[in-house]
């Protein structure tokens, strides 16, 4: 035994022999069920939306400041990098939106059976893709 941690891992098996307890697998070796991926993505998209909020703040402040500064902001949003940011913003927004609705529904105590849980997860993924792509089709066609 080298240290306290080792001491805590010593146990006896059914034959009374001293054995080393097995470690539970580290998170990296677990498979990724859809529900786990969605839960992590909900937090990640929330953090990403925090950055998106900075974009909104800049947009509004620029509009209030002067014609030129608003034109600069609008030009940036229309540039390839700006569009990439906006695309990321809409994807994160619609994902957080759909996943959030799923969480509100589960807050009422429903949808916890494994089959329902997985089905609603896939609905969230599908709805996110449809809403994001749909928004961009409308924006590029009529905006």
């Amino acid at each position: 035994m080298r240290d306290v941690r080792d001491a805590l891992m010593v146990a006896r098996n059914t034959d009374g022999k001293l054995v080393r307890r097995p470690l539970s697998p580290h998170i990296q070796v677990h498979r990724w069920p859809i529900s786990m991926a969605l839960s992590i993505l909900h937090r990640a998209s929330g953090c990403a939306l925090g950055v998106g909020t900075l974009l909104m703040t800049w947009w509004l402040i620029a509009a209030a400041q002067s014609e030129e500064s608003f034109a600069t902001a609008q030009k940036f949003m229309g540039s390839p990098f700006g569009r990439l940011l906006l695309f990321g913003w809409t994807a994160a927004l619609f994902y957080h939106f759909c996943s959030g609705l799923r969480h509100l529904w589960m807050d009422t105590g429903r949808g916890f059976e494994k089959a329902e849980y997985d089905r609603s997860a896939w609905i969230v993924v599908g709805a996110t893709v449809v809403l994001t792509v749909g928004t961009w089709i409308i924006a590029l066609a009529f905006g």
Partner: protein
Amino acid sequence: MAGSNNAPHRDMMRSPLGRARGLGAAKVGATHWWAQRLTAVALVPLTLWFVCGVIRMHGAVQHDMVAWLSQPVPLVLMLALIVATFHHLQLGLQVVIEDYVHAEGCKLASILALKAACVLLALACIISVLKLGL
């Protein structure tokens, strides 16, 4: 009320005082959780409205923003969106900080910095929108 049924049940596991207080370790009870849900529900229609607004403002100049936000309904909805968004944001990011920052001083400082940033950004947005719309 349990009525004539005097069998032990979950409600009886806590003292009446404990139930009345019910504020937990953070001393704020379910306030944070409830505020997060309330702002989430408010943001459902507001977010959809805002996305439509952003699409309409595609390629707009400053005058279009003034024309849009001078109308009473968009002005009110925009202000509601800003308040709900920043409140929801700081509630959510607070939980993220509490989960990952374990050193007490660093955690407190991060949360205070987050709240300050959210309040200041929200005020900047509100003042900008009022300047455009009024």
